[in-house]
């Protein structure tokens, strides 16, 4: 498959008071054209860090990239000139939907100012680079065309009275509406890939359902790929074509949604799915706790909590292996052939 995004062997460290934490340990990840990929895992597993590493906006102080590549349409974003990436990739070919729609707008500027600032540099009509920062003028013809596009997209995300809505300040919108605005802003530059970081976590369940429905319809209609991080397995099932699960900075399994939930091959995936509360009232947890990333377990990081673990698991991290139907798993003892 010709991948749109291919992350290979990405290693990221964070400096902490107790030493460097190995937040990403040689991660691989693929996103194909037009595909909605779910990145699931529990808090601290590194999914947000991975999303930010792909966007190139890791926290400047503590984070260090120790190796690997982030290939987007064939170019490695980590080795490309940073200014070019900022001009041509970020906000154009790859856009972003943040987790918290309440704080991701500047509270002091109107929505119009913020959207038009984005369009001034990132509109699909803008020539590469856009006007020079601060002093550059917004060409009048393009402004009018961009503004039309903005209004049309706001209608697509079902913001009532778009022209009036633009004049308002972010805090005058509800959480669900703000997330609709964020989706509009992510679509406006006509990207190839949207990175959505837990976009519905802060929302109520009925609003979440509306937003998921809207997002899936819009990206499918436009053929945009999405990398969707979430800790909620139900949400992942809802919106994704393919799901990748991470644990303590390592990716464990990547499979089409059906196979992921129906025939999980990795012991961690199985335990994770089993811990979802079921209607019968039976509750199963995963014994033990998530390990520290400062001194992580050797080999497969899940081995201390895994019932199948052997000496091999403690020593060597399993290489990716392919099962039938594009189902990848990194485990020395995958569970094959049985239904979950």
């Amino acid at each position, binding site marked *: 498959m010709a991948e749109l995004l291919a992350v290979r062997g990405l290693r990221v460290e*964070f*400096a*902490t*008071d107790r030493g460097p*934490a190995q*937040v990403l340990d040689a991660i691989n990840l693929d996103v194909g054209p037009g595909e909605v990929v779910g990145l699931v895992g529990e*808090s*601290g597993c*590194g*999914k*947000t*860090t991975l999303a930010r590493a792909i966007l190139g906006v890791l*926290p400047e102080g*503590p*984070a260090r990239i120790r190796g690997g590549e982030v290939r987007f349409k064939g170019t490695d974003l980590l080795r490309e000139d940073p200014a070019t990436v900022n001009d041509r990739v970020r906000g154009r070919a790859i856009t972003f939907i943040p987790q918290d729609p309440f704080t991701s707008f500047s509270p002091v500027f109107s929505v119009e100012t913020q959207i038009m600032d984005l369009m001034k540099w990132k509109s699909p009509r803008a020539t590469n680079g856009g006007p020079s920062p601060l002093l550059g003028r917004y060409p009048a013809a393009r402004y009018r065309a961009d503004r039309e596009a903005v209004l049309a997209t706001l209608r697509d995300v079902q913001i009532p009275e778009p022209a009036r809505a633009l004049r308002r300040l972010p805090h005058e919108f509800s959480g669900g509406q703000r997330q609709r605005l964020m989706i509009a802003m992510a679509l406006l530059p006509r990207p190839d890939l949207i990175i959505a970081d837990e976009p519905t976590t802060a929302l109520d369940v009925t609003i979440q359902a509306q937003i998921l429905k809207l997002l899936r319809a819009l990206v499918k209609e436009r053929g945009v790929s999405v990398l969707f991080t979430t800790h909620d397995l139900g949400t992942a099932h809802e919106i994704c074509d393919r799901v990748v699960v991470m644990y303590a900075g390592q990716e464990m399994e990547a499979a089409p949604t059906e196979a992921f939930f129906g025939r999980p091959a990795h012991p961690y995936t199985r335990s994770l799915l089993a811990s979802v509360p079921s209607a019968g009232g039976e509750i199963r947890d995963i014994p033990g706790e998530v390990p520290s*990333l400062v001194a992580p377990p050797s080999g497969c990081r899940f081995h201390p909590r895994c019932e199948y673990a052997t000496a091999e698991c403690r020593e060597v991290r399993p290489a990716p292996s392919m099962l039938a139907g594009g189902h990848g798993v990194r485990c020395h003892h995958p569970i094959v052939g049985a239904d979950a």
Partner: protein
Amino acid sequence: MSSVSFVLARLARDRSALVGLVLIALLVLCAVLAPLLATHPDDVFELHPAERLRAPSGAHWLGTDRMGADVYSRLLFGARITIIIGIIAVGASLAIGVPIGLVAGYYHGWPSDSLMRVSDIFLAVPQVVLAIAIAQTLGPSLPNVILALSVTYWPWFARVVYAETRALQKEVFVESTAALGASPWRLTVLHVLPNIASPIIVRASIGMGFTILTAAALGFLGLGPPPPTPEWGRTIAESREFLPDAWWYAAAPGLAIFLTVMGFNLLGDGLRDVLDPRLRRSRTAQDG
């Protein structure tokens, strides 16, 4: 608290806080050992008209003043006054401000509001101005300077304690301890106070610097302890008519004030970095 040594260890790693600590230690040393360190310990009260306004030399490290007294020796004794003013004024402000802030912060209602309104009025007028008015009314003397400074500085503590107490009341552990059935007394003294100790300590350190600065300004304006007390601010005022020739006369006490206040400010900043958990949290890596 097990954390005293921990705090000291962290402070020692913070370069500027360390400088602050050393400066303060030096000041205290000078004050305590003034009679031993001084080259001319009797010059505080004696006149040597023959040796007026000598430039710095081996005999007079920082020169002599208009009375022929050794500037260096007078500076050492001045440190005593400075420290006494600072400690008593800040101590008194703590004693007034902390309980007021705690009570006003814990109880909601008009008595609390009016307490804070009173402290607001004090804060509304610049401290120097208010201190001038008080010191002027009472007459220039050391106890009056201390009184003026205490009366004008306590609202700062009341403010800090009030704000911190109000913020802490929203913390789950305070609310849940109340829900457990704890009395207000138990809650404020055993839970709230220990948790707001850090900002109080920080404020006290910065307050020392601030108070010393204001005291010097009062001295400069002639509202400090009367001559021949070797107060630093007054010394600078005395020196002015002998400028530009007797530059050491003006420079030395100013530098002493500067280093002292600097010491307390640096220590206060360092303490804030070490003690404030909000800042510490932001330094640890976020995961997700």
